[in-house]
């Protein structure tokens, strides 16, 4: 029988392009002095437990119905056998962020350390950045009506701490670190050459890398 009717891929197809053997590692620009924050996500260590989602909601005070980050769970098939694929989703903190280009009022910007932030007080809630994001990583906050996205818990990073999701990941799937530091845990994990970014064809140069993404196809 045909099972085509059951498949409802996401509109923008987050896995598109990753199943082909793309460039091993589109490294972001590392010209700036000082840290450049990024994340390496080891999919094999993710259990889809959503502890990161919960930590994010509580730490950032967002509506639980519209979290900034969460783990998407997909059913996929490998050699005809059904398998489960998990994908922690958060702002990809692109070096070439389409959301920043789309904002009519300059409310979205990238900090020197690479973190993309939204200045909520300046946001008109037009939604242009939400529509421009190839990763569906932004949404309008249902309560304030302003654009909202993961900012790597910039308030914690600035206090010398780790993002809430990283602190709470039981499996240690989320590795946060300085991509400008060749000895950082994130760079050591990327040294295997297995790191992939989502939708490389969008040319956004994300600072979030995934290990084990190729196995989904």
């Amino acid at each position, binding site marked *: 029988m045909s099972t085509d009717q059951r498949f409802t891929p*996401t509109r923008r197809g987050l896995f598109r392009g990753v199943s082909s053997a793309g460039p091993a590692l589109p490294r972001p620009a590392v010209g700036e002095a000082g840290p450049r924050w990024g994340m390496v996500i080891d999919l094999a260590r993710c259990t889809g437990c959503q502890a990161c989602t919960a930590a994010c909601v*509580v730490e950032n005070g967002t509506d639980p119905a519209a979290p900034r980050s969460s783990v998407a769970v997909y059913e996929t098939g490998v050699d005809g056998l059904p398998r489960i694929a998990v994908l922690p989703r958060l702002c990809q903190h692109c070096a070439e962020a389409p959301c920043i280009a789309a904002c009519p009022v300059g409310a979205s910007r990238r900090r020197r350390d690479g973190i993309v932030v939204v200045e909520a007080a300046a946001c008109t809630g037009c939604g242009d950045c939400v529509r421009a994001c190839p990763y569906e990583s932004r949404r309008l906050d249902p309560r304030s*009506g302003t654009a909202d996205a993961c900012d790597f818990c910039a308030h914690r990073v600035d206090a010398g701490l780790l993002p809430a999701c990283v602190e709470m990941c039981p499996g240690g799937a989320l590795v946060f670190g300085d991509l400008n530091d060749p000895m950082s845990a994130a760079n050591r994990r990327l040294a295997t050459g297995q790191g992939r970014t989502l939708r490389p064809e969008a040319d956004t140069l994300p600072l979030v890398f995934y290990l084990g993404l190729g196995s989904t196809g």
Partner: protein
Amino acid sequence: MNLTLLDLAQPVGWTPWWAAVAFLVGLSVGGFVLALPGRAFGMPRWQRVSRLGLLVALAAGISAPPCMLAALARPDRVGLLYARAEGSSSWLATCATLMPAYLAALTVFAWTTLRRDLAAAEGRGVLARLQRVASLGGGGAPRLRMLTMFAAGGLGLAMMLGVAAELRPAWNSALLPWHLAVTALAGALGAVLVLDRLAGGVRDAGTMALFARGAAGVLVLGMMLGRESWHSPAVIAEGLAALLALVWPARLGWLVGLLVIAACWLVRWNLVATDADWTGPAPLGTAGLLVVLLAGIAALAPVLGPRRAEGTKHALRRRVLLAGAAGVGLAAIGVAFRDMARRYARGAEAAPRALAPEARVDPVTGVVTPNVGQYVAHVACPACFFTCGARLRVERASGRVLRITGNPFHPLSADPALPASVTLRDAFAALSRRHESGLAHRATLCVRGAVLPPLRDDPGRLRTPLKRVGARGGGRWAPIAVETLVREVVEGGDLFGEGQVEGLRALRGAALETPLGVLVGRENGRTAFARFFMHAYGGGAITVQHIAPPVPDLREADFVLVFGSTLPDQPLGRQIAERRAAGQMVTVVADAVLGPADNVAVGAQSRWLPIRPGTEGVLARAVMRRMPGRDGTDNAAAICGVAEADIAGLASAFAAHGKRAACVATGPLDAGSAAALQALNALAGHPGPALPAEALATDRLKALLLWGCDTDPAVSVPLVVAIGPFLDVAARHADYVVPDTLPFESWGWHNGPGAGVTTSWPAVAPPGGAVGMERFLFACARAIDLPDFSAETLDDPAAFYVRVIAALAVASPALPEISEDDFALAGLDRIRPVLEASLGERGWRKAAFVLARGGRFDLADDAGPVAQPIEPVLAAAGAVAAPSAAWPFVLAVRAGFRPGVVALHAEDAAALGLRNGQAVKVETPAGLQTGRLELRLGLMHGVVAVSSGALRDALPARVTA
């Protein structure tokens, strides 16, 4: 590669108001084009059409800005679009600038063409006088007319392009701008047709027919440009309108006009609405705005011709008509903007605000600056059986728990856990990003611990003891004082007007075998106190409702049989995730539903074994029977729905891996299955908790305490007291209810598996009126004069816990006294009086050292392997209903499954003729549940899966549309 998204909320892409903006801008520019021949160039045959076109252009043009405002989620900040647009390439900012300019040009253009009509207004009414004034003399102003005509034309065109560009992410065809332009013109023609009929019939049938045909031609062109599917509503409206316009051009002006307008709207609506997952009342608001403005402009300005003094009857009819239209339009606007009005009535809420960090850690020097507004309390996580260590961030000023994370000193929450010698200040540094220390030392909880709701001030919280009024289970209660409660429970009497009830004092003297029983929901770190009371009381039984699932140590395991669609919560989930990813462990996920217990990224380290719901125990027993030295055979393969070879494979894997093999379960298990899983682990050599004691024999009891029972105990005993923070299921069997404290408001002492001793202390003050189990039993004990509760032995229930914790602190090797810094950072000043009173000047500082770290974890675990009676477990039979003709499916109830979803295997659904997304009904003998059908391949044949709700796992079921 095909992927089905199983769980994700889609973000909102568009607000539907963008369809309104595109529609109104198109209509306005289209109307302006129609206004040109008659109004700008004075072509006589076009006079009527052009007047109506101008009316449409003005009304739609004025309606567009409110809709554009509505398209912003924060319209109050529209000014920023002008103030901060510098350097922006945004089309939104461009449109925001073009729109007022276009409107100004259009209005001045209209004024120049209407000046003569304004001047010709007759009568003495205010309106007529105002019109004569507004005419400013009534000249033609040909140069101004030309100038504003070109300006309005150019700005209108630019604005249409701007709107089309803003809609760029939604384009379904490269020809979309042309399609928008063509339908805009057609829409304006349609509006003119409708207005022509409204304004009093065809004065020039030939022209109208010509326009209807024109609209038809334009629509056919639009259909070709649109490249939309032939069954889209927009295309159907376009085709129908074109057909009618060609066949009866002059006779069906109404219908053709409305259909053309609808087509123009639907083309834009399709673009936006297919991309948004919510649809607001945008069509209503747009229509309302248009009607009001059409009525208003027609009434106030002489677009349809100079104002003539008319007969009273005619004028009245006209006024009623216009007022009616305006009323309907205003009502529509009210409905459409209701949500926005409500938000502003509340005051637009602030954007999400992050918590203040608990400390600052200098990444270079490592200097820790704690946030004095908060303290971190280490207690036991109350979310499940495992007793992980929780770290509460509490706000000092409010006493509110801000966030719950893992305790870095606790071996179940951190690996490696910090040794007790580390200070709390250094623990901040260990968890920080300095030297990336926090990655290795991260202290975690599962999602259940992370989102424990703030129940302290929950409105349903009990704040006074209750006594039932009327029959038991009637749900009527009267508040009573604590003293009255204790006196009645202890002394008994004719408490409810139903006859004599024996109190605890009389029962104790009655030489009964078990006069008093305690039924506890589950071990919670406080049961030791209840046992202490029962020991002093003598002749009582204490029984636990729920027994912990097997908790083998997986830190060395390399083969794990997982019963569940998700992995067990941490620590087991954490251990599996880490070892499996490192290639050190293989899991076989035995469940009817394939869920994230599997993970394609670990490749062959994980395998799915579909088994029928409720057969976990059957499979575990079958594996044991097939292990070497036992030659049991049974019909387990048929019951579980698995191949015989798979069971044999599991048995040989367990035999081959020995102590490195284990089984774990995610969901709650029935007692028989839990015993079978524990027996399998015992056979593999893992220590385990004792098997559940026999159920509480309530028939012999004269009094019963139901404490924290979350499932209905269904008992009938002469005197029943329920203890809980809320009116729970146990209350329906109770005579009295005692308000209990919540976990973070209570003392506790947990002997968790593989975790040393976890301690809890009231890190948060209980609300007034929360008596607590301990104070209630303490008061009862004092009233009965129980020996261990005399003033000399125990002067405060808290002292019971404090002394146990102090003993823990002085056990060899003895721990040091707490430092002032640790004491302050842990927030222990809250309980200093209790500690000092119970332990004296020296002792309390050692106990506080333990409390600050959430327990003591360096003492040897004395939980050895418990001798498991395996033979009786093996002898148990699997009692699982086989599928029948009436009930062809088995129900799988899975927590974490999205509510409202009913999942079936795609082939099962096809056999039933059911489609993906269809509304279906799941019937069981115990009740039914409805939901939306989701077709899966990762689901066992013959199984229907739903989220946790009223229905129980493994029920027989049938599925119908």
